[in-house]
C-alpha cells in the first residue's frame, strides 16, 4: 500500500462516520483528496522540499482523534500548565477536537466573532464557504490538499469593520501523549474587516511524550486598513510532527505582522505566503527557530508584491545545536508593473555544533524596475570582542557564549510586544541551551524586574 493510501483510507473511513455535509464541502474534500492522490507526498526531488524529508510523516500511521478508540485523557491541570499565562479570548483544540471546557470566549467584544469551525459550519456554512480555501488552494502543496480533504475543525475569527480588539485571541492546539499516534488537520480562518485591529496567537504545545502529526492551514484576509498581528508559537513536544501553512491576502493600506517562533517538534515545516494585493499594504515577518538534538525545522516564506507601493520586511534568526537541521527559504516576488516597492529580508544563523546544519536560500524574483530590494544571509560566530568584554567581568566563557546566544535571539524577540510570549520564548531558549550555559536564572530576574 502506498504511503498516500494510508491517509486516503483514513479519509474515507472518516467520511462514513461523519454526518451529512453541505455539498460544497463534500466537493472540496473530494478535490483535496484527488489533488493529494495525484501529487503524492513531496520528496527531496521537489525544489520546495529539497532539504526536508517528510517520510516520517508519509510512512506514519496516524489516527484521527475523532476515530480513535482509546484516547488518553488530558487532565485539566496539564492543560492549564501548557496554556500561556495571558489574558486572552481562548479557543482550545485537543488533537484537533474542540474543547469547550478549555475555551473562554466570555469577554468577546462587540463586532468580533470567534468560534470553532464546526459551529460556524453548522450556523452559516455559506459564509464559511466563501473563505475556506480562497487563499490556500489544494494546489499549494500536498499538505494543503490533505488538510482540505480532512478539514472539519478549527477556528473562525471575524472582525467587523472598525472593530479594535485589545485582548489577544488565543487559538491553542494541544497535543496529547497517546498510545496510537494521532493526526489533526485544523483550519483557521481570519477575516479582518476594514480598519479592524487584532492580535491572534496560534499556540502549538503538548505533553512531553506526545508524538502526533498536525497539519495546520490558516487563511487570513485583511481588508482595507486592517492591522493584524499574528503569532505562531510552536512549542510542540520533541516527537511531534508539524506542518503548517499560513496564507495572507492583504488589501489596501493593511498591515500584517507575523511572528513565527519555533522551539519544538521533531519535524517541522512552515510555509507563510502573503499576497500584497493593493497599494500601501505592508507585511513584516519575524522568525526564530531554535533546534537541538535531531530536530528538523524548515521555514519557507514568500511575499508576493502584486501591487505598486507595497512594503515587506523580514528578519529570521536560527540557532542550531547538536545534530539539528535548519532550513530557511525566503522569497520575495515583485510582479511586473508593481513599482515603488521596498522589500528587505535578512536571515542570520548560529551553529552551536559542528554536526548541526543550516541550509538557507534568500531569493528575489523581480520583474519591475523601480524597486529597493535587498536580502542578506549570514551564518557565523559570536562576536569575540563581546565575549572578551563579558569575561573581563568574570563571566565564564561558556556563560558568555550563552548570553550572546540569547542575545542573538533577542534581536527578533525585541519586536515581540506580548510579554507573555517573549518571556516564554526567552525562558525556553535559555533553558534549552546546553546546561553549561545555565542562564535560566538570569531570565527569571529580568522578568521579575519587568513586572515591577
Amino acid at each position, binding site marked *: 500500500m502506498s504511503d498516500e493510501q494510508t491517509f486516503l483510507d483514513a479519509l474515507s473511513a472518516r467520511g462514513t462516520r461523519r454526518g451529512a455535509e453541505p455539498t460544497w464541502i463534500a466537493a472540496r474534500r473530494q478535490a483535496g483528496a484527488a489533488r493529494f492522490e495525484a501529487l503524492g507526498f513531496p520528496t527531496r526531488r521537489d525544489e520546495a522540499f529539497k532539504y526536508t524529508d517528510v517520510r516520517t510523516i508519509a510512512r506514519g500511521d496516524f489516527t484521527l482523534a475523532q476515530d480513535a478508540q482509546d484516547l488518553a485523557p488530558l487532565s485539566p491541570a496539564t492543560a492549564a500548565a501548557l496554556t500561556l499565562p495571558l489574558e486572552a479570548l481562548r479557543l482550545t483544540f485537543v488533537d484537533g477536537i474542540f474543547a469547550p471546557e478549555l475555551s473562554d470566549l466570555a469577554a468577546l467584544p462587540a463586532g468580533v466573532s470567534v468560534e470553532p469551525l464546526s459551529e460556524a459550519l453548522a450556523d452559516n456554512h455559506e459564509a464559511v464557504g466563501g473563505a475556506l480555501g480562497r487563499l490556500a488552494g489544494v494546489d499549494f502543496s500536498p499538505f494543503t490538499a490533505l488538510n482540505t480533504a480532512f478539514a472539519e475543525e478549527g477556528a473562525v475569527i471575524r472582525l467587523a469593520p472598525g472593530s479594535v480588539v485589545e485582548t489577544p485571541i488565543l487559538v491553542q492546539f494541544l497535543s496529547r501523549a497517546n498510545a496510537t499516534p494521532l493526526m489533526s488537520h485544523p483550519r483557521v480562518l481570519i477575516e479582518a474587516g476594514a480598519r479592524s485591529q487584532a492580535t491572534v496567537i496560534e499556540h502549538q504545545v503538548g505533553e512531553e511524550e506526545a508524538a502526533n502529526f498536525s497539519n495546520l492551514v490558516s487563511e487570513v484576509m485583511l481588508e482595507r486598513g486592517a492591522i493584524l498581528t499574528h503569532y505562531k508559537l510552536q512549542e510542540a513536544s520533541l516527537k511531534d510532527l508539524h506542518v503548517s501553512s499560513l496564507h495572507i491576502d492583504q488589501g489596501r493600506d493593511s498591515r500584517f505582522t507575523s511572528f513565527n517562533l519555533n522551539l519544538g517538534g521533531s519535524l517541522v515545516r512552515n510555509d507563510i505566503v502573503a499576497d500584497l494585493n493593493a497599494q500601501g499594504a505592508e507585511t513584516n515577518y519575524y522568525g526564530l527557530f531554535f533546534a537541538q538534538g535531531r530536530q528538523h525545522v524548515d521555514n519557507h516564506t514568500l511575499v508576493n508584491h502584486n501591487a505598486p507601493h507595497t512594503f515587506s520586511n523580514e528578519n529570521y534568526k536560527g540557532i542550531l545545536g547538536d545534530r539539528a537541521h535548519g532550513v530557511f527559504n525566503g522569497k520575495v516576488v515583485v510582479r511586473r508593473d508593481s513599482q515603488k516597492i521596498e522589500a528587505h529580508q535578512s536571515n542570520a544563523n548560529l551553529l552551536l555544533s559542528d554536526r548541526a546544519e543550516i541550509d538557507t536560500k534568500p531569493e528575489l524574483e523581480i520583474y519591475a524596475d523601480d524597486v529597493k530590494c535587498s536580502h542578506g544571509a549570514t551564518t557565523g560566530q559570536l562576536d569575540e570582542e563581546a565575549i572578551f568584554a563579558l569575561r573581563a567581568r568574570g563571566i565564564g566563557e561558556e556563560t558568555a557564549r550563552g548570553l550572546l546566544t540569547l*542575545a542573538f535571539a533577542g534581536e527578533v524577540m525585541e519586536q515581540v510586544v506580548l510579554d507573555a510570549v517573549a518571556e516564554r520564548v526567552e525562558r525556553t531558549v535559555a533553558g534549552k541551551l546546553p546546561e553549561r550555559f545555565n542562564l535560566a536564572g538570569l531570565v527569571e530576574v529580568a522578568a521579575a524586574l519587568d513586572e515591577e
Partner: protein
Amino acid sequence: MLEVKDLHVTVEGKEILKGLSLTIQPGEVHAIMGPNGAGKSTLSAVIAGKDGYEVTSGTITFEGKDVLEMDIEERACAGLLLGFQYPVEIPGVKNIYLLKAALNAQRAARGEDEMPAPDFMKLVREKIKFMKMDSSFLQRAVNEGFSGGEKKRNEILQMLLLQPKLAMLDEIDSGLDIDAMKVVADGVNSLRDANRAILMVTHYQRLLDHIVPDVVHVLVDGRIVKTGGKELALELESRGYEWVLEESAA
C-alpha cells in the same frame, strides 16, 4: 598586591611595552600618565588578558599568583577588573543579565552562594541610584545606543557592584562632560578603601583633580620613566612631557 616586573609586550610584531615595572599596594591609587602611543592602554589590556598582546618576557603577579597563567574570567574573579576606554556594545544582552551573571560568577569563584534575587535587586537599585542612572538602563542592551558618558557610568556601576580588589580604569575620563566626570569620580572615590587599589590610565590631569592619586607614573615609549606624588601630575600638566624625557635621558 600587584607586581609587574620588566614586562615586554608586542602587538602584531611591534614592541609596545619595553621593560615596564610597577608595584601597587592595597589602599593605593596610582595614575599612569603619558603621551599618546606610550603604551598606557596596552598595560591594562595585558593585565586583563585581552587577545593579541604577546608577552615576550617579564611577569605579572597579583596577590602572589601568576596573572599571565590565568584565564580572562579568572583574573576578573580574582579581583582584577578593567574599566574599558571604549566599552563594547553587546546588542541583545541586557545589562541586568551581565550584572547578575558577573556577580554570580565572582561569588561562585569565592565559594559563595548566588545572591538571592531580592537582595540582588536591592543592591543594584542602590548602586544605580548612586551613579544617577535611570533603572531603565537595566533592561537595555549592554552599552547599545548609550552616549559616551552613559557608557562610562555603566563601567563604574559594574565596579560598584562587583567590588574588585584592583580596579583598572582605562581613560575613564575620555568623552565625559564635567557633570558626568563628577558622577564617575564620586563612584570611583567611593571604592577607595584600605584593602582596595585603583590604577588609572589617563591622558589629562583634570581627572586627577577629582580622583586624587597617591602615586603618579610617567609612561613614555613603553617604560615608566618617572614616578612621583600627585604634584607630578600638575607639573606634567604645565610643562608637558618633554622635560621628563630629557631628565630621564640625562
